[in-house]
C-alpha cells in the first residue's frame, strides 16, 4: 500500500495514533465528550440567552448589498415603464423565463414598449443577466424580496403591472434582533 496515494506537497498528515489506554477503551474520552455537551445544555437552560439562531419569520437577517431579489420594472416620472421592449433581457436570460410582447408606442420619442412583460419566477435562476443586459435600466433586482411563496404555480407568473409596483430597496436594513 506504500506510495499508492501521493499527498500533495502542502498537505499535512494528521496523526491518528491512539496512544493512551484511556483513549483505547473509549470510556474516558466519551465521558469528556458528554461533559462538553451537557455543559452546552446547562448553558442554554440557565441564562445563555443570545442564541446563534435567527427566529426567521419574526426576525430577519440583513441581506448584503447587491443582493439579487425579486425583479422590478423601473418607471419614468410619468409612471410609465422605462422598458423599450428591446428583448435584450429575454435574449440574455439563460432560463428563458422572461416573456415580452412588444407593441408600438403612440409617443414618438419611444418606439416600442412592452404590452406584456411576464417573468416566470419558478424558471428564473436569479443570475442577474437581465439586469446587466438592459440598456435603459428598466429592470432591476434590488427589491430585497427573497421570500417568494404562493399556493399555486400561476401566482409565480408575475406581470408587468405587478413588477412595476414593486419598490426598490437597494440597501435593505434588515435588522437581526437576537432572541430575548
Amino acid at each position: 500500500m506504500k506510495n499508492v496515494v501521493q499527498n500533495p506537497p502542502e498537505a499535512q498528515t494528521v496523526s491518528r495514533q491512539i496512544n493512551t489506554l484511556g483513549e483505547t477503551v473509549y470510556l474516558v474520552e466519551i465521558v469528556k465528550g458528554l461533559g462538553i455537551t451537557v455543559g452546552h445544555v446547562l448553558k442554554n437552560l440557565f441564562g445563555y440567552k443570545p442564541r446563534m439562531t435567527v427566529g426567521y419569520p419574526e426576525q430577519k437577517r440583513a441581506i448584503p448589498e447587491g443582493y439579487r431579489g425579486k425583479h422590478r420594472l423601473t418607471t419614468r416620472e410619468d409612471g410609465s415603464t422605462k422598458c423599450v421592449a428591446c428583448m435584450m433581457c429575454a435574449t440574455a436570460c439563460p432560463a428563458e423565463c422572461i416573456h415580452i410582447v412588444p407593441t408600438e408606442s403612440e409617443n414618438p420619442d419611444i418606439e416600442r414598449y412592452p404590452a406584456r412583460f411576464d417573468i416566470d419566477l419558478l424558471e428564473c435562476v436569479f443570475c442577474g443577466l437581465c439586469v446587466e443586459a438592459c440598456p435603459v435600466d428598466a429592470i432591476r433586482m434590488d427589491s430585497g424580496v427573497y421570500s417568494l411563496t404562493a399556493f399555486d404555480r400561476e401566482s409565480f407568473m408575475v406581470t408587468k403591472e405587478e413588477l412595476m409596483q414593486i419598490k426598490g430597496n437597494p440597501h435593505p436594513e434588515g435588522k437581526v434582533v437576537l432572541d430575548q
Partner: protein
Amino acid sequence: MTALDVLIYILRGLLVVLVVLQIVPLLIWLERKGSAYIQDRPGPERAHVGPLRLAGLFHVLADAIKLFSKEDFMPAGANKFFYYLAPMIPVGIALITVAVVPFWHTMVFPNGYTVIGQVLAIDPGILWFFAIVSLTVYGVIFAGWSSNSKFSLLGAMRASAASLSYEIPMVLAAISAIMTYGSVNLAHIADAQTGVWWGFLPRWGVFVQPLAALIFLVTSFAETNRVPFDLAEAESELVAGYHTEYSSMKWGMFMFAEYAAMIVSTAVFTTLWFGGYNVPWLDTAALIAHAQYWTEWLLGITFVVGLVGFAVNLNHFAAGVGRWRDIRDYEGLVLAMGAIGTAAVALLLLFLCFAFHLPDWYGPLFAGFIQLQMFIVKVLFFCWVFVWVRWTLPRFRYDQLMNLGWKSLLPLALANILLTGILITVLK
C-alpha cells in the same frame, strides 16, 4: 377471580401500556429539545394550543397529525404482507416486553388484598424479556427485505448482524446480575435491591456489578439501534436504512418503536442495576408507615414549587410581551395562573392532611404511587442518557462495531461472570 381482580388486572395492563405510550411523545420532544440545546439552538418552540407552547411539546402532536394525514406510499415490487407486517412487530414487542417489569412493590392493603406491580407476574421474567425482545430484529429484516430497495436491505442486514452480536454480551451481562440476585424474576430482582449498605449506599446492583451494568448499557444502545451503533440507518450511507421506503404512519410506527424500545431497555436496565422502583433510602415499609408524613412534605414542596413557578412565569410574561405578537404572548400568564392554582390546591390538601388522619388503605396506595413515580423518573433519566450519548458521539464504523462487540464486550462479560462466580463461591 372476582370482578375486582379482573378490573385491577385490566387497569394494571392499561397503566403500563399508557406509561409507555405517554412517555414516547415526551422522549421525542426530549430528543429534539436536548439536541437543540446541545447545539446551541432554541429547538421546537412555535406550535401552540391556545396560548400554551410548553417549550415546543405540541410539535410532537403536530408531527403525529402530519404523519397520519400523509400519503401512504408502497414501492413497486414490495411484498405487501411483510411490508405491512414489519412496522407492527417492533411496536408490539416493545409494548409486551415492558409487561414483566415491576413498576411498584406489591401493594398489600390492610384487608389483605394485594396488587402486584407487574402486568405479567411470570417467573421467567428477564429470560422472557430477552426471548421476546430478540424478535424485534424480525421487524427490521422484514422491513428491509420486503420494501424491494437495496438501501433498506443493507440497513436490515447491518441491523440484524449488530443486534445478534450485541445480544450475546447483553445476556451475559444480565447473567452476572441473575447470579448476584439469585433470581430471574424481575420483581425479586427489584426487591433484592431494597435498603442500604453501611447506612448510606443504596443496595443497587450497579455498586456490585459496575462492569456488567456498563456492558448492558452499551449493548442497549446497539439493541435499540441508536447512535453510536445506528449503522442500520446510517443516513450518510444508506438514506435511512431499513425504513427508507416507509412513509406516513408506517414510518411513524418505526419511529415510535425506536422510542418505545428505548423505554423498555431503560426500564430493564433500571430494574437490574438501579434499584427499579426503589426510592433510595426509603423502603416500602417506611413509605407505608410514614405515608401521611411524606404526603404532607410532598404537598408542602408542591406549594412552594407552585409559588416559585408563579413568580418565574409571571416574570417571563412581563419580559416576553410582544415576542410573538399573538396569543402565545400570554403563555406566561396562563402558566402563572396554573402554578398559583396548583399551589392553592396543594395548600388546601395540606390543611386537610393536618386536620384528618388518612385512612389505612392510603399507605400502600401512596407507596405504590411514589414508587411508580420514582421508576418513571429513573427511566426518564436513562432515556436522557440515550439522547445525550446520541448527540455527543459519532457513529461507529462497521468493523469497529464488530470489534467492540466480539473482541471487547464479549470477553469482558464472560470474565465478569467468572469473577462473579468465584466471588459468590468464596463469600459463601
